[in-house]
């Protein structure tokens, strides 16, 4: 694995704490270093280009959904609302119960496989373009640039004294950051408490303790992660960052520097023919390092810090254009593509390799299964619970009765009527189950007794006999189909 190699393989001794000690020094003269390094602040330079455009498109797409969704109305309620208190989860037309938790599991499994698939094909696409960490960092860095200027201006100001100019800019940046973070926290909680109610509570300063905590906590996390932690999150905290390398192979598209074309690097005049001087295409301007949000040099090869944001591709393409060299000194390419000089077509063909095909087929099966399951989902759910203490009783004229509690869960937003029938034993009838009305998105418990005539009791062996409850939802309109569901249970004949 290349990432692993990058960690164990010593790099050129141009930097690092050990570089100062020269070879002749004995043990007594070797320096002592701190095991905990102070993080060097990264001043990422602004970048524009084709990939930067895509990244901004993803910022807009993800954030319009995130900030906008809670404000959408549907059926006179919030379109997407996770009501933890009432344990009902509304997603547009769907009303989910805690019993539907399997859908969340399926969604997470699908997300994981989608991540595997994207990673196998094109590396850390998720990290570079869609991950909230990247997206919020992008937004926060934009604010930083607008207020404090680009890389050079920021570095210069940070090196200088705390004068008025530096102070007001820092304060303004913090204020905007905090505002964005608070709005993000507010939006997050708006998925759990109706956002209009939440807005009202905030305006009246009447927020409950849990809402207050989560708004502030989520805001703090956004502010801290996007404002300060940034690449530290990717490098030291994110589990995906580390296990994604397991999905890489030599045909995975990664951000790569064309060593063969670029080296030996060196500055030169635009007018000279650098090939004649024995130089490669890399003019060693260092822009690829300056734009990197994780502070690495892509020319050292694939490194675990690289989140695949492609800022270096954009900036290098710009330089190549200025130099009138062909683009793509730093580009999305595969390791095999680099080494074997594969054409675009050959590289594309290699996408259809077993690893990718397996991920794709598993993903398709999962998505298909989830879609089918949701499409075929019954608009109501029934639990049948046998009475716990008394198994059976004998009533008038030797008839045998068993008692059940039925919970009918209405997963629609209209009041519904249900009828319960029973079958499974000769002459079995239900008592106490007339038409049952259940309020919209409510669950209701009812007690019913199933009864068999004495002759059934004598004919059947003592013990538990399988029976079935058939519950049908009565149609509200003449053309509405009747929905049925069947629940299994047992009927106990006493000794």
């Amino acid at each position, binding site marked *: 694995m290349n990432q692993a190699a990058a*960690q*164990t*393989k*010593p*790099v050129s*001794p141009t*930097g*690092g*704490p*050990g*570089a100062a*000690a*020269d*070879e002749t020094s004995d*043990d007594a003269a*070797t*320096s*002592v*270093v*701190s*095991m*905990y*390094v*102070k*993080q060097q602040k990264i001043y990422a330079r602004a970048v524009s280009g084709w990939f930067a455009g895509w990244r901004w498109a993803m910022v807009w797409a993800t954030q319009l959904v995130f900030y906008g969704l809670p404000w959408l109305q549907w059926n006179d309620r919030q379109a997407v609302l996770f009501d933890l208190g009432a344990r009902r989860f509304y997603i547009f037309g769907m009303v989910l119960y805690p019993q539907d938790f399997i859908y969340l599991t399926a969604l997470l499994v699908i997300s994981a496989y989608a991540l595997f698939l994207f990673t196998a094909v094109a590396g850390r696409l998720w990290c570079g373009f869609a991950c909230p960490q990247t997206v919020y960092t992008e937004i926060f860095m934009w604010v930083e640039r607008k207020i404090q200027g680009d890389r050079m201006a920021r570095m210069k100001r940070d090196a200088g004294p705390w004068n008025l100019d530096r102070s007001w800019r820092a304060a303004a940046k913090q204020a905007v950051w905090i505002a964005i973070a608070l709005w993000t926290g507010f939006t997050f909680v708006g998925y759990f408490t109706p956002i209009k109610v939440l807005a009202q509570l905030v305006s009246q300063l009447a927020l409950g303790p849990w809402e207050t905590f989560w708004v502030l906590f989520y805001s703090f996390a956004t502010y801290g992660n996007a404002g300060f932690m940034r690449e*530290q999150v990717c490098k*030291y905290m994110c589990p995906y960052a580390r296990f994604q390398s397991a999905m890489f192979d030599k045909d995975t598209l990664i951000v790569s520097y064309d060593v063969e074309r670029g080296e030996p690097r060196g500055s030169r005049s635009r007018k000279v023919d650098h090939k004649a001087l024995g130089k490669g295409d890399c003019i060693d301007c260092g822009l690829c390092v300056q734009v990197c949000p994780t502070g690495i040099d892509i020319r050292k090869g694939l490194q675990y810090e690289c989140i695949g944001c492609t800022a270096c591709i954009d900036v290098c393409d710009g330089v190549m254009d200025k130099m009138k060299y062909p683009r793509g000194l730093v580009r999305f390419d595969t390791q095999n593509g680099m080494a074997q000089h594969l054409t675009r077509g050959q590289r594309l063909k290699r996408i259809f390799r077993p690893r990718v095909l397996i991920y794709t087929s598993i993903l398709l099966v999962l998505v298909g299964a989830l879609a089918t399951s949701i499409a075929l989902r019954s608009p109501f759910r029934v639990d049948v619970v046998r*009475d*716990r*203490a*008394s198994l*059976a*009783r*004998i*009533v*008038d004229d*030797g008839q045998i*009765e068993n*008692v059940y*509690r039925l919970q009918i869960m209405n997963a629609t937003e209209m009041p519904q009527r249900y009828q319960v029938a029973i079958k499974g034993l000769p002459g079995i009838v239900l*008592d*106490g189950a007339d038409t049952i009305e259940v309020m919209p998105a409510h669950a209701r418990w009812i*007690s*019913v*007794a199933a009864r068999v005539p004495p002759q059934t009791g004598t004919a059947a062996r003592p013990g538990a006999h399988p029976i079935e409850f058939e519950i049908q939802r009565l149609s509200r309109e003449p053309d509405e189909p009747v929905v049925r569901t069947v629940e299994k249970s047992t009927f106990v004949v006493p000794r």
Partner: protein
Amino acid sequence: MSDFFNSGWSIFVAATTIIGLVACLILLIVASRRRVMADDNTTGHVWDEDLREMNNPLPRWWMYLFVITVVFAAIYLALYPGLGKFPGVLDWSSAGQYKTEQQRAQENMAQIFAKFKGKSAEELAKDSVAMGIGERLFGNNCAQCHGSDARGSKGFPNLTDGDWLYGGSLETLTETITKGRMGVMPPMAAAVGTAEDVKNVANYVLSLSGGAHNAAAAQLGKPKFVVCAACHGPEGKGNQALGAPNLTDKIWLHGWGEAAIVSMINTGKTNVMPAFSERLNAEQIHVLAAYVWSLSQTSSMAAK
């Protein structure tokens, strides 16, 4: 901390905890600096001929997380119990928290139940909140024996049929739930007479409710019923003051038919309903009694 049989253990625990915390900090400081062994940014160790370990230092903020945990531990131990017998500045205990929460719950509950105070069974039966509370109380406390549909089973009375052993008024139901009941049917075989007499009385009892019986035997058993009449009344209609069941209806709490009645006369029966005054407070019992009352009013069985 009463588990400690002498204060030595308490001191031991406290000392170990503090030494552990201090040791963590010392370790952090000692391990924070290291002599460089190689000049190529590796640790200088070589394994398997060419495998070297890069000096890949931990970020400093991560180290601060360790410090924060130590600080957190110190603050926690100052506020809460943990250092041996030291109860902490806040004087917190799980028992204390339980008591506070219970008290708060009681206060909240009292507010809800205050609305039901002094209301009649009819009024409460119309109150859906009261009935909802009653249903849950019934499900948690009564359904185990009487069934979740309150129709009981053998030995456990049906509460919906309007046939009450002790009476079905709100006051009687409240008393039944609060104090419990003990119903005693003594063995009456000796008083009735021979086994044949017992059988005859049983048939007479069956005839009272119009069940299948041997008419001749019933006729013979009728004079012997006087010993039963002491409790069940001369007409067999029972006596609610004694909890003696009505024998003229078709409701058989302990089994129907000749054999069951013969066995009851021969061996008797003691049937107990436990008292709930320990588990439920008076306000809860009031609502629960009203719920049980409402069951006997609306049931389809009562309508029959």
